Structures are given as C-alpha cells and as structure tokens.
C-alpha cells in the first residue's frame, strides 16, 4: 500500500509537469518500467494510470470552474430558438400561412445549496399566456420589432433532496403526458410543493400540490384561485419498462356564476357568467418500453423505444360534455438528441364542452377550444445535437359543428428547433 502511495505521488507529480498528449505516453512508459523492474504489478500500474488520469480530468474541471467569477459559478443559462412555418386550413375560411419565431432565454442562480432563483424571458405578448410565438410581419410595419415578455420568475427552496417549495411564476409543475389540459407555454403563478421520493432504485412516489392565482381583484370579491393536488407513482422494471401514473384533482374558487374570462371560447355561459364549476379529476398514465421488438428483424433495429400514454378528465358539474381524453402512442428513440434520431407520435383527443376550462388547453389544437375531437401526428428528426426538425399535423373539428369558427380545421406546423 505504501509502495503504491509513493508511486502515486511520483506519477502525480510527473503528470503535473507534463501536459496533454505527452502525459499519456510518458506516464505509460514510466509505469511500464516500474512493472518491468518488479516495483509494481500490472494491476497496480493499471490502477495508478487510470486513477491518475481521472484525477487530472477532475483537476481540470475544478480549475475551469474556479476560473469563473463567483457569480458565474452559481448561474446556469439555457434557452432555445424555434423557426416555424404554420399552415391552417379551415372549411369556409381562407387558408392561413405564416412564419413565426420563438425565443426563450433562462437563468437559474443558486443562492446556496438549498435555494435557487430562476428567471426567464421569451418572445410573446402579455395578453396571450398560451403562446410565445412572434409572427413575421404581423403589424403595419415590415420587419417590426418583437415584444419580449417575462416568461417566468420564481424562487425555490429544497430543504432535502426529495422536497422542493417554489413560489412565483414558474413552469407548470403538474405532470401531464399530453397537452389536453395545459398548453406547454402557460406558466402558472402561485406556490407549489413538490415531493419526489424514491423508495428504491425502481419505485418512486411523487406529490404535487399547487395554489395558482387565476384572477386578482383589488376589492377581493372576484379573486379566483385554483388548488391542485396530484399524487403519483413511478416504477422502472429492469431498465426495460418505465411506468408513471398520477391523479390530479382540481378545485376552483369563485368561478360558477361569475364573469367569464375574455379568452373564453366554448365553455357554457349563463348570460356573461360561467354556468358550471370546473372542479375536476384527471388521471394520467404513461408506459415506455425499451427494445419492444427485440428479436424481430428490422423493427428491433429501427424502433428502440415505444410508449403509450393518456390523460382523462372528468368534471361532475355539467349535464353533458363533462369528460375528455387524449391518448396516444409514440415510437422511435425515447428522446431525439442527435443526428438521425427520430420519434413519431400519434394522439387522439376528445374534450367535452365543459370538461375543463377552455382558457388552458394547447392553443395549436383547434385554437385551444373545448367541445372538440382531434387527431395529431408528430414526427421529430434529429439534425444534430440539440437541433431537430419537427412536423406537427392536427386535424380537429367541433363536437357540435355550429358556426363558422367550429368547422373542421387542419393545421400543419414545420419547426426547426435549436436548444442551448
């Protein structure tokens, strides 16, 4: 042991004196000589060589980190850019064809080991919480400037590895395998408690508890709040099958019999007021299988992953149009992260008129309305690391087909995504 320690010191010193490619050759030579002379065994030489190499890699990472100013050591920057072509065809209306960009930029700053602040900006407008798109030439002036909005700003506190408390405007913490209920751009405002506890390497439990502010009224009379609780379970079977399921329960205050939101489109009204409550229950499930076609020629090679998933919503208050679902399957790579990787996804959705508040669902699918059924097909292809091409096609129509805006609609979106 002492001999090995002495060799480690000598080799470590030599490694510090040498750099880059010269290191590998010289150290290997030195160790080989020690083996030849019987000072070290081949196993000890292998141990010294590998551990020294790993030690140097760590020292370099440490030095890189320490060279950064202190504030930069605590900050992580992330963002993405999307270029989109969108084509919409609706019966009885002119075809709509447009170009759009989306940019999002975020900073996460560690205050200490338990506390973090996150701030993000994005393109978009303050009046549409379901979109961060900026449309080309959408004003009376060509090449007009685009608005930048505050996308999120929050503080979070994690007293343990399995508990996080967050407050502010933040990414939606409610787990959803589809966007039946929540548009991905919508960042709620309020507080969130997240428990994520792993019982063993295979089984984990999680719980999301949220209080979202929906309407602020200075008099307090018309304040609206949403309470959510979502317990769930995650299970991994031999690294081959991933299972995740949860049930979210939603409770709203001050909704039924009060004035509708200006963004309302399809929910039932009584005069200008909401006719129903939207307290509802939402089970969600997702099952992913790695190598689902092992042993089947061709399929085994080209389909390394397949998954099924679905959301269901039920609102007991209305007499009709009280439920909805979005279910689908995906196959290809589990995640598209590099050149040549791909994933295809097919989803079937139906959402009753009053199953859910119509101001929250995915705005690309039939304008985000309820009272609709749809089919969506998505094909994503990796162009390089952190860059992909996405084709997203929607076909949707109203469940009752009344009025021009409720005619069948087809949307095709072609996206070029770049992330950093």
């Amino acid at each position: 042991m002492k001999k090995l320690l002495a060799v480690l010191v000598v080799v470590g010193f030599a490694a510090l004196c040498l750099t880059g490619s010269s290191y590998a050759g010289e150290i290997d030579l030195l160790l080989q000589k020690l083996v030849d002379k019987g000072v070290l065994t081949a196993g000890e030489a292998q141990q010294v060589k590998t551990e020294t190499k790993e030690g140097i890699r760590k020292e370099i990472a440490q030095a890189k980190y320490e060279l950064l100013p202190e504030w930069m050591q605590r900050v992580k920057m992330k963002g993405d850019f999307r270029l989109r072509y969108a084509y919409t065809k609706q019966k009885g209306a002119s075809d709509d064809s447009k170009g759009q960009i989306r940019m999002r930029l975020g900073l996460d700053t560690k205050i200490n080991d338990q506390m973090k602040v996150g701030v993000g900006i994005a393109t978009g407008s303050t009046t549409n919480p379901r979109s961060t798109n900026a449309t080309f030439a959408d004003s009376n002036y060509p090449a007009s400037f685009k608005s930048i909005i505050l996308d999120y700003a929050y503080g979070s506190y994690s007293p343990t590895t399995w508990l996080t408390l967050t407050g502010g405007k933040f990414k939606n913490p409610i787990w959803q395998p589809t966007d039946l209920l929540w548009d991905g751009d919508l960042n709620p405002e309020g507080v969130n408690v997240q428990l994520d506890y792993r019982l063993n390497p295979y089984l984990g439990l999680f719980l999301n508890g949220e209080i979202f502010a929906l309407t602020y009224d200075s008099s307090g009379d018309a304040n609206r709040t949403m309470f959510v609780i979502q317990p769930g379970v995650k299970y991994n079977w031999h690294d081959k099958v991933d299972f995740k399921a949860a049930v979210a329960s939603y409770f709203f205050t001050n909704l039924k019999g009060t004035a509708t939101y200006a963004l309302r489109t399809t929910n039932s009204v009584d005069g200008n007021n909401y006719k129903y409550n939207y307290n509802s229950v939402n089970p969600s499930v997702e099952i992913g299988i790695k190598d689902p076609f092992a042993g089947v020629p061709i399929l085994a090679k080209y389909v390394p992953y397949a998954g099924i998933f679905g959301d269901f919503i039920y609102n007991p208050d209305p007499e009709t149009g009280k439920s909805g679902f979005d279910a689908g399957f995906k196959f290809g790579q589990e995640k598209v992260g590099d050149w040549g990787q791909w994933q295809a996804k097919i989803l079937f959705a139906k959402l009753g008129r009053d199953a859910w508040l119509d101001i929250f669902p995915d705005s690309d699918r039939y304008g985000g309305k309820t009272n609709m059924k749809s089919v969506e097909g998505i094909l994503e292809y990796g162009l390089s690391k952190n860059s992909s091409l996405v084709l997203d096609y929607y076909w949707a129509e109203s469940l009752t087909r009344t009025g021009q805006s409720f005619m069948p609609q087809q949307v095709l979106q072609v996206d070029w995504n770049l992330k950093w």
Partner: protein
Amino acid sequence: MKNSIKTLLVLSLLFGSVLTGYAGGPYGEDERKIIIEGSTTVLPIAQVAAETFMRQNPDTDIVVRGGGSGVGIASLIDKTCDIANSSRAIKDSELDKAVTNGVDPRAHVIAMDGIVLIVNPANPLSALSKKQIKDIYTGNISNWKELGGNDEKVVVVSRDSSSGTFEAFGTLVLGGAKVRPDALLQASNQAVASVITHTQGAIGYVGLGYINSEVKVLQVDGVIPSKETVLTDKYPVSRPLYMYTNGIITGITRDFIDFIMSKEGQKIVDEQGYVGLK
C-alpha cells in the same frame, strides 16, 4: 430518594448503552450505514463484497443498489449515495455538474472487465479483428466462409440486454450498434459457453473468468485474452470498473474500498468473472 436517584442513574446508563449500542465498534453513530449505487456490471462484486464485509463487521449496514452507471454517478452528485459504481469513466458533463454541486468525485479502479470471444472447438479460425466481430454481430457477415472458415452459417450468441457484459460488448466492440435480431440471447456467461460447446458454427462472448476447455478462445486484433493482456490494456475488449466516492474518504466507506482492494476483495472480483488487480 437515594434509591430513586440510583435507579434513575442505572436506567440512564442502560438507556445510554442501548442508544450507543455500537460504542465498542470502530464507527461513529452516523458512519455505520453507507449506500452504494450504480452500474449493474459492478453490482455482483459490490453485493458479495458488502455481504462479506458486513459479516466481518457486524455493526455496519451497506445498502447496495443497481440502476446503472449514470444513476449511480447522479446520486453521488446529488449526495444521496456514498459510493457510485460505474462501468465507465465519469463524463465531462458529470464532472462539471459535480464540481458545481461541491462534490469531489474520486475514482477507485477496483477491477478490469475483459470480454473473451469464444467459438466451437471445431471452428478452424483462431483470430478475428474487432471490425470482423462487429460485422458478425450486426449481421453483415453470416457465413464463416466470408472470413476464411468453413462454409457454415454463423450462429450468433449474445448475452441478454439486461446484462452488464452485453452493455460492455456493445460499447467496446459494436460502437453502440445493435446486435442482429436473430442472435440467441442467453441469461448468463455459463449459458453462452454451453451453447457454444454444443453448437457448431456458434460464436459468443463471456467474461474472462468463464472460459473453459470446451470452447475455443479467439485472439482479437492479434492479442490473446489473458489477465496480463487485459491489465496492460493490450487486449482491446477490456475496460476498468470504478467505484467513485466524494472527496477524501473516511470511516466505513474507506474501509470498504480498502477491503475491495485487499487480496480477499480482489478474490471476490476474480470469482465474479472479472479481472482482479492483484
């Protein structure tokens, strides 16, 4: 009153003894339990070593979990495990994350993993290149004639995808490519060797510790697999196996790593079919 005080003192001492029941052991209250997590390749070594270590040190509790190298290293970075088992070196991105999280990952090489290519003894070939092995396992070569052997169909035998040996073979030989779908997947090294023994035209791979006289061992890129060629990096289908810890180790973590590196620990490594460093 005096009796009451005496009784209280005796009870306090008894209670204290129960609370510090391990006072005679070498470890402090917080040091008796460690969690080891990560690579399924390293898992059998860690499990047997932990059982032996706990038998020798009854006041210790070592929890050993699988999950994969990435999971183990992520847990080390999150400070939820004491030792991360890994069948690969920590990635640069993981190192950066560790440093940012104030974790000082230290590598301990505990063994080498050497994978041996074996064929049926009737096969006239005695050597293949890595490229030829890849072509066989990915389906580009299906007859031994294409490699100068008999006019005979190649029967490809592989470990099943949950095994660490399968993962290592995929990385070291196939470069991430998929094994041909008609390969016969076996659940153990012994099962692979058995199929090779009884099937003419079969090729398979096993850990260095599982070769026997009923199979023929192939040279790879001109190198005969042996403990020496694996330890000296001459044999191309080999890799180090790691246990990563955070910073300077003390207490049970240090003693456990020392145990693995001892003659007894390295014997366990050999018994599990890997190449010990001693």
